[in-house]
């Protein structure tokens, strides 16, 4: 899932300074599951903003709505008629949701309530960890299903570096060394010899380094006359 984290209230208030009527728009997908921008968080943040701005002496009026998925036209289109009633939209979706709103409603000022943090999963309740960098050229078959691009601080393809000690990364003792994990897994699966192969320089053009990416599936595209957006 896409994991996000709510921005500090002070920063959100700064973005809303000068506005009087705000619509908080939550998202019912990833950020609901990671408890950062779903219906419940929208409610809590709206209350916090109402109370805080009232105490400051410049109360902002906060309305709330949460859509199923803020990154698809069909779920945000029904918002269209309401948006004219507000000075600003505070999106609690990931960065994709914010930009989807902006692209669909070019006359509306939209600000982000979350920091979109990474692609990951919760290994335990209340903890989220990064797992994927969306590099566009998956190598998990070579590393036993553990991604060094996302999980090694230096993105080594031929690790571990000299800083791996007692299973943790030199950069942060809370971070397991990805290459220790890879070594242990390959060892357990009887595939250590695979790690002796030198992995050549990565083709980063499939990652963000080749510029913004786009996938076009002609088998799924609608005929030109039927296309929306």
């Amino acid at each position, binding site marked *: 899932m896409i994991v996000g984290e709510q921005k500090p209230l002070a920063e959100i208030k700064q973005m809303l300074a000068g506005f009087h009527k705000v619509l908080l728009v939550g998202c019912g997908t990833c950020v609901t599951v990671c408890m950062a921008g779903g219906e419940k968080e929208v409610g809590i943040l709206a209350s916090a903003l109402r109370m805080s701005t009232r105490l400051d002496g410049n109360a902002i009026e906060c309305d709330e709505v949460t859509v199923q998925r803020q990154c698809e036209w069909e779920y945000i289109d029904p918002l269209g008629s309401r948006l004219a009633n507000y000075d600003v939209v505070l999106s609690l979706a990931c960065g994709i949701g914010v930009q989807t709103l902006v692209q669909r409603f070019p006359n509306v000022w939209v600000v982000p309530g979350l920091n979109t943090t990474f692609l990951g999963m919760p290994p335990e309740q209340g903890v989220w960890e990064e797992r994927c960098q969306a590099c566009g050229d998956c190598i998990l078959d070579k590393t036993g299903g553990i991604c060094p691009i996302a999980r090694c601080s230096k993105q*080594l393809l031929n690790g571990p570096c*000299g*800083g791996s000690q007692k299973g943790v990364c030199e950069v942060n003792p809370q971070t397991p060394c990805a290459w220790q994990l890879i070594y242990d897994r390959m060892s357990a699966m009887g595939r250590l010899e695979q790690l002796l192969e*030198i992995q050549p320089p990565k083709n980063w053009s499939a990652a963000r380094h080749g510029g913004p990416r786009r996938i076009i599936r002609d088998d799924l595209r609608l005929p030109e006359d039927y296309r929306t957006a």
Partner: protein
Amino acid sequence: MSEVVHNGYKSGSNLERVLVAGHFAVTGELGPPKNHDANVIRRKAELLKGCVDAVNITDNQTAIVRMSSIAAGVILIQEGMDPVIQMTCRDRNRLGMQSDLLGAAALGIKNVLCLTGDHQSFGNHPTAKNVHDLDSIQLVRMVKDMRDDDRFQCGEEIPGGGPRFFIGAAANPFGDPFEFRPYRLAKKVAAGADFIQTQLIYDIPRFREFMKRVVDMGLHEKVFILAGVGPLKSVGMAKYMRDQVPGMIVADEYIERMEAAVKHIDKTDKKARAEAWQQEGIRICIEQIQQIREIEGVAGIHMMAIEWEEAIRPIVEGAGLLPRPAIQ
């Protein structure tokens, strides 16, 4: 360029000649200053001159901005010394590294040590973006392909031939997973490393065990292995290295010896304590070199006397490694 006669050498650097001739090599390390003062390099070079066969120049070591290793290397060449420029994958992508390698070769540099690089979070620009386009093993292979196949990393031919470097890589016998370390060394050798410089050794039994595996794999016959040594300067430094430096093991024996060295000196007499520590640090280092020379497969030592270059001469001299061989 290609018209140069290679005489069978890969680069013909002094370090390569000393190792190929079968001498027990000594390399040193010089950290460039955090400014553009060439005299700092010259002053440190003076302390190393005649004591070492080649001098490593660190590349923004511990991710702190310093004078470029290539620029400092050129100053060393002017001083008649053989620099080993360190090159990390942290600050440059494959374009930047190849361009700098061409420039380094044009300026007369003949040795390069290929490193991943310390993470920027340890340095003075922790909010920087790192690069890591290549890792150290891929960098070794790239430098080798430039030299041996006259090709850029992309496969394109280098007009007039590629730059010729004696290629180094690092090994940390003390990192984990310990069992994998000799295999990672084997990968560096397979990628094209000509020589290896190890992490600082303060645990001889563990290094001996590492070298046994390296020798069993026959790697010592394919690559020159220089064991990393350096004098401890105080108990505080020894403990810092043990507790704070990632991937480093310092045996208790050395900490106890450093503590014992100042046992009978009044705590307020800081000068006498510092001198006693330094003497003991130098003594330990000389003993370590003697122990390391006995280990099969070790082709030399790499001396890292960080910000204490004055210690190098007494250590090399005490270890019976002077004078250094002069090879034409």
